[in-house]
């Protein structure tokens, strides 16, 4: 097991509706798990607790140190080039500058964006920006990669390409991936297991035991979507 939440609560304000109450779950190393739910259901709070961006009020959290989150937007520095944005996260690594640049270029190549190395964020499309964010996350060799609504701002074609790239990266790096999404189809397409969240609690845990690549027109695929929709 790589991640475990035991009866975790997060109280923002006593008696307020945005508190997270008594959340428990565990995730195995190498799994692709999703948290699905409507806006305000508590997904982001769970992720912030996971990366240590906010402190729990009670309960116990087990998580690896190298847990990296890729945000939906606004996480690249506009004054740095793509290559600089990636190498920036390696500043503390005790390796040579040449090695840092080599790692950054390798990760950019992995996501097929090595040609964008000298571009600036404002010159990139939404899909390219997400790829750079993922390449940057991979540069520090994370144990857990959290994707926060990674495809919500992308067009269908870009989304499809990025789905393939993420699945490829997940398998090649034996990563543990946690994805936050409000799109059920996407969750069924990519993850092995999903936690449905509503009213700041996990309302159901759903197994998605299909082989990859998945076919969205498959009957079982459609049934799984209906099953998740019911518990939300």
């Amino acid at each position, binding site marked *: 097991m790589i991640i475990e939440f035991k009866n975790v609560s997060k109280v923002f304000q006593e008696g307020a509706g945005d508190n997270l109450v008594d959340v428990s779950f565990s995730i195995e190393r190498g799994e692709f798990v999703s948290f699905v739910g409507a806006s305000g259901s508590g997904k982001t709070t769970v992720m912030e607790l996971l*990366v*240590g961006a906010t402190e729990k009020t009670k309960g116990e959290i087990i998580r690896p140190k190298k847990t990296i989150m890729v945000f939906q937007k606004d996480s690249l520095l506009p*004054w740095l080039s793509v290559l600089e944005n990636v190498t920036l996260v390696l500043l*503390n690594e005790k390796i040579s500058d040449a090695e840092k640049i080599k790692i950054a270029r390798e990760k950019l190549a992995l996501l097929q964006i090595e040609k964008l190395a000298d571009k600036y964020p404002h010159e990139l499309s939404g899909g390219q920006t997400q790829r750079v964010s993922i390449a940057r996350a991979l540069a520090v060799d994370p144990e857990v990669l959290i994707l926060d609504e990674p495809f919500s701002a992308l067009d269908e074609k870009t989304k499809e390409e990025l789905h393939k790239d993420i699945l490829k990266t997940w398998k090649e790096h034996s990563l543990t991936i946690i994805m936050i999404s409000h799109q059920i189809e996407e969750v069924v397409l990519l993850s092995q297991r999903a936690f449905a969240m509503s009213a700041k609690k996990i309302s159901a845990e759903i197994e998605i035991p299909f082989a990859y690549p998945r076919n969205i027109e498959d009957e079982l695929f459609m049934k799984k979507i209906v099953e998740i929709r019911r518990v939300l």
Partner: protein
Amino acid sequence: MKQPYFFNKKESYLPAVQIPARFRFYFTVAVPAMIILATLGVLRIVGELPMLDYREADIHTAVVATLATLARLMIAYVLAIVVAIPLALVAEKSNAKRFLLPIYDIAQSIPILIFFPFVALAFVKLGFSEGAAIFILFVAMLWKLVFSIIFGLNSLPNEIKQTAQMYNITGVNYLTKILIPAIIPQLTIGSIFAFADGWNFVIVAEVLHAYLPNGVVANDLFGVGSTMVSAASAGNETLFMYSLIAVVSMIIVLNLSIWQKLLSYAERFKF
């Protein structure tokens, strides 16, 4: 192969001076050299000025007076920037924010000119009346800059703060690679407003000082303000008009050659 600038030891680690090629010579050599030379030159000229006869003074006096005023503004601005950045960074720390921001807010709302007589007397006693004007200007500019920087820091997206935390970008790296570049757009806008306020204050200060004490014309705060008021009282309308044209021209030149270019450069630091 192009390397990230922060690995290139020949260049600064400060992203703020990682200037695009087309701006590089301009901002790193031409403008600072022009400002330093002008400041040193003008202070030297002013230091050796005899008591002027404003009935006969000409365009040369108007130009030197405008440069003297600009030199005062530049010195006060540099001092204000040096103090404003740490003040804003300290106030941005969550545990200090609660009590420092109200203090700053009260401090900035006190009209600075009420201190002028005390400050002027104190500096005159020390034999450094120039210091009074620079001090008043410094305080007038300081709060504009502090609040601009705080606004810039507040507009830093949460995702960036969380990204820095996740990747352990802390301390000097966080300051130089993230915070300082992030405040450049607001700092530029704050600087424009601070400088505009500075022109108002310095001219008023020079005018007031020219008539201190008891209507005796003083020449130790020589600038465009004192020249205009002395020209008017000496009946030299030509010098008055030259001074007015000189100060307006100087403001236009500064705006076109520095502030507009800085605004354009600051675009790349916007989220």
